[in-house]
């Protein structure tokens, strides 16, 4: 690193364009962007899904899929990476530019020990062995426990966070000048995310390398970014130092995005209600036991341990926790998609334990407890029209087709969709619209309890906010009891008046959200709150903005 290299950008992108096939929704995935990546700095590229941010990163790596055509220049070390022959690109890739991906499981070879996978990086780039010492050193640098033993593990032995550490170790193996990280923490829990971000920041500072961080989360930007570029529909709409862009955004779109970032904000406690709770859950237990083979010992996992809570009519209880905490299992037990091992679930006006009912007795009660699902793409049958999807419950409960048609139109208006869209298929809708269809389906049978399982986690932030508003509004208007499952405390703070925190199957803390989220008593809750990315930057900003 001489003085000249510090002054010049590491990578200078000029008029980079990636053309999409003719029948796509727009002509260019990336549209004439100019971008400089400075050495020794972290540049964040932010944007919603489909904004072209990943395609930009792939263009630098020479990984743009075949029929798409790249033009413009990506100047790196005196050569243009656009149109560089594959063999010359290979020499740069991995050795001088490292990359980490979103899904560490998909990016690692599942049948190869991780030590060997790291060793391959050295071998492919012709670096003479033995590599053992360097591999162990790298794994130790990544903060992995017992690196000498761990290098003999297979990827499935490791947790998601550990896999991502291995990926980073591979990307850093040859001390690249530039690290490209494509949503490296999106698939991880908040607590793990915080650790991985800290690790990337530390590695960057130690090696003085440039980092291009692709993300959709302004929290991540605030957490580690030096500079930020905001992308929208293939164009860069705003660029500047992180402090400046987050503090005083100039472009309208940046402002909209920043406003949409959910914040931890106190919510007025729900008015106390008298009388019996709408739903009361006591001592629910669920244990999974699996067996690796016919003679292997059984392994048991206590997914839900002694969970108890009550839900009032018109109230919203948030169940928050990391992946594997048992929150989704609990939700599925309550709607009886899963069978619990024990416990007592009572619905207002029903004398019996819902968990004890045989499926015949349960059938008429199903309509009172409905669910909104996480994945807007998997939760709608691609082969049925919106009318058939929303009306399926009505028709199954013997409502005549003509009446169902009116009701579906009414429901679609309720979730702010055009009733005329009833005859179309789900693939004609965006993720946010699909989620609205899912909500309409859940409301079709006029339920008393709505169980929402991560209803916004698959959506872009700007859409998230709108779906959350819709859910909260409907819940109030129809005075539903809502059970809101989420991993995101910020989202929970916006819609829930009570919050239960789950850890390893157990509810560790529960109470009004103003208490739990702003005055946590348990260490685990404190840890979750501390791990919210970019917390400092967003907590100080006023909640109200100038957009809208």
């Amino acid at each position: 690193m001489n003085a000249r290299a510090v002054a010049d950008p590491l990578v200078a992108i000029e008029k980079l364009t990636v053309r999409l096939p003719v029948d796509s929704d727009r002509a260019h995935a990336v549209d004439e962007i100019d971008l400089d990546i400075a050495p020794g700095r972290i540049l964040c590229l932010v944007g919603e899904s489909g904004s072209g941010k990943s395609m930009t990163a792939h263009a630098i790596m020479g990984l743009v899929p075949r029929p798409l055509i790249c033009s413009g220049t990506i100047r790196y070390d005196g050569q243009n990476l656009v149109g560089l022959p594959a063999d010359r690109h290979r020499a740069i890739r991995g050795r001088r530019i490292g990359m980490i991906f979103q899904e560490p499981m998909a990016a690692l070879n599942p049948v190869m020990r991780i030590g060997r996978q790291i060793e391959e990086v050295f071998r492919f780039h012709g670096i003479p062995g033995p590599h053992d010492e360097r591999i162990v050193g790298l794994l130790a640098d990544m903060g992995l426990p017992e690196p000498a033993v761990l290098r003999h593990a297979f990827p499935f032995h490791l947790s998601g966070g550990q896999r991502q550490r291995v990926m980073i170790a591979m990307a850093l193996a040859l001390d690249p000048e530039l690290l490209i990280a494509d949503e490296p923490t999106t698939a991880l829990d908040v607590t793990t995310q915080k650790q991985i971000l800290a690790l990337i920041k530390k590695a960057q500072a130690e090696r003085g390398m440039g980092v291009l961080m692709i993300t959709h989360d302004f929290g991540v930007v605030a957490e580690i970014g030096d500079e930020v570029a905001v992308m929208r529909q293939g164009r860069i709409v705003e660029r500047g130092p992180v402090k400046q862009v987050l503090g005083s955004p100039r472009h309208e779109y940046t402002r909209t995005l920043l406003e949409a970032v959910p914040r931890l904000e106190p919510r007025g406690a729900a008015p106390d209600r008298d009388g019996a709770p709408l739903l009361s859950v006591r001592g629910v237990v669920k244990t999974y036991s699996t067996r690796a083979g016919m003679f292997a010992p059984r392994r048991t996992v206590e997914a839900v341990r002694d969970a108890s809570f009550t839900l009032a009519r018109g109230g919203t209880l948030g169940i928050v926790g990391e992946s594997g905490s048992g929150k989704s299992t609990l939700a599925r037990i309550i709607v009886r998609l899963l069978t619990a091992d024990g416990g007592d679930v009572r619905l207002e006006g029903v004398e019996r334990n819902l968990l004890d009912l045989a499926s015949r007795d349960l059938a008429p009660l199903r309509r009172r407890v409905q669910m909104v699902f996480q994945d807007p793409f998997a939760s709608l049958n691609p082969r049925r029209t919106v009318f058939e999807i929303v009306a399926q419950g009505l028709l199954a409960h013997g409502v005549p087709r003509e009446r169902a048609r009116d009701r579906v139109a009414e429901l679609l208006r309720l979730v702010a969709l055009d009733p005329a869209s009833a005859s179309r298929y789900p693939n004609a809708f965006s993720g946010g619209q699909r989620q609205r269809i899912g909500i309409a389906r859940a409301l079709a049978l006029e339920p008393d309890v709505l169980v929402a399982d991560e209803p916004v986690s698959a959506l872009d932030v700007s859409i998230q906010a709108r779906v959350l508003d819709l859910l909260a509004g409907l819940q109030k208007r129809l005075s539903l009891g809502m059970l809101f499952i989420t991993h995101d405390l910020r989202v929970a703070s916006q819609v829930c008046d009570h919050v239960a925190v789950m850890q390893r199957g157990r509810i560790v803390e529960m109470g009004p959200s103003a208490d739990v989220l702003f005055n946590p008593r348990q260490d685990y809750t404190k840890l979750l709150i501390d791990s919210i990315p970019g917390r400092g930057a967003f907590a100080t900003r006023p909640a109200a903005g100038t957009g809208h």
Partner: protein
Amino acid sequence: MAFLKRYAENRGAVAGLVILAVVVAVALAAPLLMPGDPMATRGRPLLPPGGDFPFGTDMLGRDVLAGIVHGAKVSLMIGLISTVIAVLIGVTVGAVAGFFGGQVDDLLVRVTEFFQTIPSFIFAILLVAIMTPSLASIVTAIAVVTWPPIARLARSEFMSLRRREFVEAAVLSGLSRTRIIVSEVLPNAMSPLIVMGSLMIATAILTESALSFLGLGDPNRISWGYMIGAARTVFRQAWWLSVFPGLAIALTVLAINLVGEGLNDALNPHLKGRMRIET
């Protein structure tokens, strides 16, 4: 329309469809093209191709061309009917096993495996021999030996679709299990099953030919396999007796395979690997 466009992108598939259409047309128009019984003697035995008989005559003086034209109907019919039966059995077994899982699945998988452990062609010979050769017994035998792979495919499709959220939503909406299986899951599992079924028609035609070659065909109906089988004693003296029916079989099976491949491309566009990264 998009489906037809994707299908037409595969030139081989279009060619296959054209050949298949010709074979089907010939089979349907057989009584008009070659009126009369194809089993009847028409001329001197073992006449080489040319003259009155473009494909020659066999050792009983029967017209080879007439045999091929009429045999098309038998071959196609056996292929189609036996595949339909096999698909019905296979999809039912696979759907029930995949959807319900647990002990039902264990039991049905064992049954399927039982059928798969017996070499299928030997099994088919055995069945036809026991039931005495006839159109019905050949169709039954082919269906019985070919359904297990379909059941396995249907089972794996149902197992993965079963866990999808739209199925959970259907359960919560109060739909009955039969409704969920038939109208929610099955339509999503259809494309690979259609592709496999179309390829199985070709296999069924080959199996029927092989059975007829061994003399286990329906003695009252002419089929391509029967013609080759009957000609085996005079292979060296009269090549035309086996070459023309053989070509008919090869062409038809090839056409069906091409059509199946085209269906695969059109129904599962994401499998075609259009997006490729240069490495």
